[in-house]
Every structure is written in C-alpha cells, then in structure tokens.
C-alpha cells in the first residue's frame, strides 16, 4: 500500500512538473464545452433567401415582408431574371428563392389562384425541407389573413407540443454529447500517451524491473488521471448547469457514479491502446485520428443511431460515449432514475473489465 502511494505520488510529480500540459488538459474541456455548448444548435434560422417578383403588388410585398420579419429568413437580394437564380445559388449566397408568378395579385383575385415556387438549395436536404416548410406555413398564414371573411371549411387544426426541450435549446442535446466526447477522448489520450511515453523513453523498463506488480503499476499510473478527469467532469457539469441552463432533473449522486464508471472505462481504453502500441505517434493517431470522427458520429448525439444501417448500429455499441450519452440525457434532461440506465451502466463496466484484462495480459507478455 505504501509503495502504491509512493508511485501515485510519482505520477503526480510527472503531471505537475509540466504545467503547460496540465493547463491544456484542464483548459481544453472548458473551452470546448463553452464554445460548442453555446454555438451549436439544430435550429434553422436566419436563412438567406432571394426573391423573384416580376410584378410588385400589395400581396407579394406583404408576403416578402412577413418572410423577412420572421427569424427564419433574411431576404438577401431581389432577383429580376430567372436566369440569375442559378448564379445566386452557385455563389452560395442564398439557401432558398421565393419565385412569384407574373401578376400575382391580379391572378389571385380574378382566377382565385396564384403560384409561388419555393426553390431551395438541397445540398443539405434536411435544411431544404425545413426551410421550405417554414416558408409554406408563413405564406399560408398570409393567405388566411387575406380572406378574414372566409372561414376555411372542414378545417383540422394541428396543435404541436414539444416535450423535454420545448424551447428547442441546442445545448440540451449537444451538451451531453460534447461532455461524453470530450471526457472520452481526453481521458483516453492522457493515459495512452503517458504510458507509451515511458516505453519510448525507456523508463518503463526500470519500473518493470522493480518488484511492483503490473496491476499496481498500472493502477498507480491511472489514478492521477482519473482524478484530473473527474475534476474536468465537475467543471463541465458546473458550466453546463450555470451558464447553459442545462438542468439536472435526476439524481446528482447517480450522475456522479455513472460518470465515474465512464471515466474509468475511458482510462481503460487508453490503457488498452497503450498496450498495443510502442510509439507515441501511433498511440496518438489511434486515439485521435482513429477515434475522433467515429465517436462524434456514432455516439448518437449528432445522428440518430436507429437511422443507420444495421452493421453500423451494431458497431456503435462499441463506442463507450454512446452509452454514456444516453445515460446523461436520461438523468439530466429527462430526470429518469437507475431503472432506466442500469443496462447502459453495466455495458460500460463490462467494457472496462474487457480492456483491463486484455491490457494486463499484454503487459505480462512484455515482461517475459
């Protein structure tokens, strides 16, 4: 036990003697959670649009004003010729163009019918769908106002109610996601590098020659990083609750416990990477280049997993942050308890055991 404490202390010396790295490790999650928590949103607003309006009249002006006044659109330019449409889209200045027919108002009054085309840049098909839908509903509203005396017969009114995140705050889905991702990557990178570095510098040989058991050796390496990660986690949670108004509806103790499990899983993954690599460069490439995009995309906070093809759905199960993301969402935003998350927690524990067992096996081989 005394040996163990001494070794832990040695690791702390390593870390505190290099303040630049320490500042980076602690500052990084803060910067990331602040930037991305505030900046990312799924909402579609301020889309720039162009208007092609051959005959300017009361109705078209009203529609254009209404579009411009909504927070979804900004009328960027007015186009005279349909041929200019293509150029406007190609220069990337607009997302959608509203094309009125000739003599719009006249046609509406006399033939009781007038056409509007909503031409959208479908490079991003979802934004195109959402933008066209917003515009359609704004135009329909104007239409209803134009004929206050006609109540439209056989009308089905649709009431839409948003649950869990009624203001559509992007932070609610992004904060748990970023949290899972940042914690996973930083913890993994820290441990994998710290161990491989000792291998590269040759000081690992010295440690191995000592009478320490491999398990104790590894534990003493991991514990300081676990404490740093927990500290990072605490800061992230404080920032998200105080600055980003993300609630903790469920139990904080439960959140803490599960986060501890997740951090240990991430550290174990780092350990695993360090046991299969010999150089820092390779370790880094695996833990950054190899893991960055997959964790970002497969953890489910950007793209719903059930939409993915089956093989990828299966693959997403090996991404630890996927499980943690579900847990955090359940506890913080939905306020669910242990009953909802015990399965996910067990998966994380299973992963930890798996990584540690394999790393220990590899570790022993190295000695012989």
């Amino acid at each position, binding site marked *: 036990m005394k040996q163990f404490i001494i070794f832990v202390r040695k690791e702390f010396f390593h870390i505190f003697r290099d303040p630049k790295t320490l500042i980076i490790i602690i500052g990084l999650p803060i910067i990331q959670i602040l*930037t991305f928590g505030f900046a990312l949103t799924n909402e579609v607003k301020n889309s720039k649009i162009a208007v092609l309006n051959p005959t300017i009249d009361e109705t078209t002006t009203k529609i254009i004003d209404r579009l411009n006044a909504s927070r979804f659109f900004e009328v960027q330019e007015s186009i005279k010729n349909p041929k200019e449409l293509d150029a406007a889209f190609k220069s990337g200045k607009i997302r959608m163009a509203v094309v009125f027919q000739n003599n719009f108002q006249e046609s509406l009054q006399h033939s009781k019918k007038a056409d509007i085309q909503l031409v959208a840049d479908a490079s991003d098909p*979802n934004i195109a*769908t959402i933008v066209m839908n917003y515009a359609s509903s704004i135009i329909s509203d104007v239409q209803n106002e134009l004929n206050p005396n006609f109540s439209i*017969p056989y009308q089905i009114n649709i009431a839409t109610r948003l649950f869990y995140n009624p203001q559509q705050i992007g932070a609610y889905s992004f904060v748990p996601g970023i949290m899972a991702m940042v914690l996973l*990557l930083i913890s993994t990178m820290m441990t994998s590098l710290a161990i491989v570095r000792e291998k590269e510098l040759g000081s690992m040989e010295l440690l191995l020659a000592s009478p320490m058991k491999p398990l104790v050796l590894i534990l003493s390496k991991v514990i300081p990083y676990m404490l740093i990660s927990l500290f990072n986690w605490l800061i992230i949670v404080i920032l998200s609750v105080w600055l980003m108004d993300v609630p903790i509806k469920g139990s904080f103790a439960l959140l803490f416990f599960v986060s501890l499990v997740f951090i240990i899983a991430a550290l174990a993954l780092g350990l695993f990477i360090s046991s299969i690599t010999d150089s820092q460069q*390779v370790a880094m*490439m695996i833990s950054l280049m190899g893991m960055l995009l997959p964790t970002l995309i497969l953890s489910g906070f950007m793209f*719903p997993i059930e939409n993915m093809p089956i093989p990828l759905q299966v693959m997403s199960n090996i991404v630890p942050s996927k499980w943690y993301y579900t847990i955090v969402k359940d506890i913080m935003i939905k306020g669910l308890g242990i009953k909802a998350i015990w399965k996910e927690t067990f998966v994380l524990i299973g992963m930890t055991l798996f990584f540690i067992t394999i790393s220990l096996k590899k570790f022993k081989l190295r000695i012989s």
Partner: protein
Amino acid sequence: MRTIIFLLEKEFAQIFRNSAILRIIFVMPIIQLIMLPLAADYEVKSINCGIIDHDHSPYSRKLIAQIEASTYFKLVDYEQNITGAMTNFEKDKSDIILEIPAHFERDLIKEEKSNLLIVVNAVNGVKGNLGAAYISGIIRTFNQNIRMDWMNFPKMSPVPEIKIAPIPWYNKLMSYKNFMVPGILVILVTMVGSFLSSLNIVHEKEAGTIEQINVTPIKKHHFILGKLIPFWILGIVVLAIGLLISYIIYGIFPVGNIFLLFSFAAVYLVGTLGLGLLVSNFADTQQQAMFFSFLLMMVFILLGGLYTPIESMPDWAIMITKFNPAAYFIEVIRMIVLKGSGLKDILPHFFAISCFAVVFNVLAIWSYKKQV
C-alpha cells in the same frame, strides 16, 4: 534547391520507414470515408410514431393508414390513453405521438372544425422538427382531400388560394450522403495535413534529432518547406483517393471543375500545414501538440458547418468560423461538387484561404528558433 531535395529525401525516408504510420495515414481515412457517411445519414425515414386514437372512426383510420403508408413513419405504438404512450415516449421508443380526440370525425363534419394534437420529443432536435413537418404535411393533404369531398356541393364561392410548390435544386433526390461525403473528406484531409505535420516536428524535438538539424547550415524556410512538402503531397493523394472512393461507392462525381477543386485544396493544405507547424513550434511535447490539435480539429469540425448550419449560430461563433480554414473548404467542396460553382463564385473563399496560407507559414518560419 538541393538542400530541399535532400531534406525531402530524409522526410520521405522517415515516413515510409514507419509502416504503422503509413498504414494509418492511408487506411484510416479510407475506412472512415467508406463507413461514416452511412452513419451520418440524416435522411429521416423511420420516425417512430405512436398513435392514440380515441375516435375509431373511418376518418381516423384513414388518416392513420395514410401516415402508415408514407415512407417517413413507422407506427410503433397503439395506445388507448396518453399515459401509456408517454411511457414509450420516455423510453425513446417513439419520437412523435399523434393524438386523435374522440368525436374527431363528427366535429369535422358537423362543426367543420376539429383538432389534432402532435407531441414531439424535442431532445432529438432535427428528428423532432422534421417529424412534425412531415406529419403536418400528411394531415394537410388529408384535410384538403376531405374538403374536396365535401366541397363538391359548394355552399360558398371558392376561396382565393395561393399554390405553393417546393422545388429542391442541385440534389434532387435529397440525398444526405451527397451532402456529408465531401464534408467528411475535408476533415480527413485536414487531419492528415495539419495534425501529422504538427506532430512531426515535436517528435524531432522530443527525440532530440532537431538539434542535429539546427547545427547544420540549413535555412529556416528550407527546414519548414522540407516538413511541409511531404505532408502536402500526402494530403493531395488522400484527397484524390477520397474523391475516387466517393465516386465508386456513393456515385458522387463533382459537377464542377475538378482542377479548380484541387487548386483550392492545394492552397488550403499549405494553410493548414502552416498552422500545424505553428502549433508544433510552440509545443514542447507530443502530448501538448496532440491536445492542441484535438482542440483545433473539434473547432474545425463543429464550427465548420460540417453538420450544423453556420448562420444559425450566435454572432460571436460566426466570427470564429470566419477564421476557420476548414469552414471555407467545406463550403467550397460542396459548392463545386454539388452545385458546380465556378472560379468566380469561390473567389472570396480563395482569397481568404490564401491569406491564411501566407500568414500561418510566415508565422511558422518566424517562430521556429534554431537555438534551444
């Protein structure tokens, strides 16, 4: 000139000698490019829909049949009351609930007015929004059909109607992959470029070999060029392979000029490599360089418009995107590949990226110190 050639020889020898790194440089981007767009698929096709039908009338059944027939929804849940439906909602089994009130049909015909309630799970932002948009569309059509049925006996003169026709351009099949593949390719090329180069110099620092170079008469800019060119070539090769893969696997062929795309990429890579070298000059250990690259990559990806639209961000974040080289390249590659934009359209981007290239590299050369 000869110095540079020797330096290049050295760098290439180093890269090719380490087969693990070489494999990672080429294999990892390829695997990711093949797999990730399949995952990053936001064509919302299977929105899990729960239905509570209190009416059980021909109309309510007809509406449900129409929702079922659409490709967007999967009916997962039939409940008698809202509490039952909410339980499944909580478990994420359904994304959206449609509640049809009792007397839906009777009210609609007798009182000419009826209500429906849609409950949306907004934790999953885009999916909720799209789901609500789709289901409203279906209900609107349903509503129009009913109106047509009953209006055949017109009690009143027709209401003036504005006909709205949505027309998607450039990506007529509305394929989300066409949107994501070029974006992901940019990130992969950036990783190979900036990330590897930043590690490279720090590696020499840590290994101590940089001292040996410092004592030679090699000029600062020779040294920087020697580090820059190999990774520049790797980046271009990865881009070419990536475009080939996106053509073979996803059938995406650039509508615009490929030459233009590569010339933009060439300048872009010089810029990001310069940034990578700059990072490496300030980092003492590979660990520091890596954490810093991690931050940069996250900014590149998340504030680059890869996935969330830039114009929805708050103003200060939009300012940051202006200084994000990846944001320019992501926009340009999508413009050229999907819309066929020409040189004139991307001129502002070209200008901005050239500025980055010059500034970063000048700073990199300036901050590289030959003495310890």
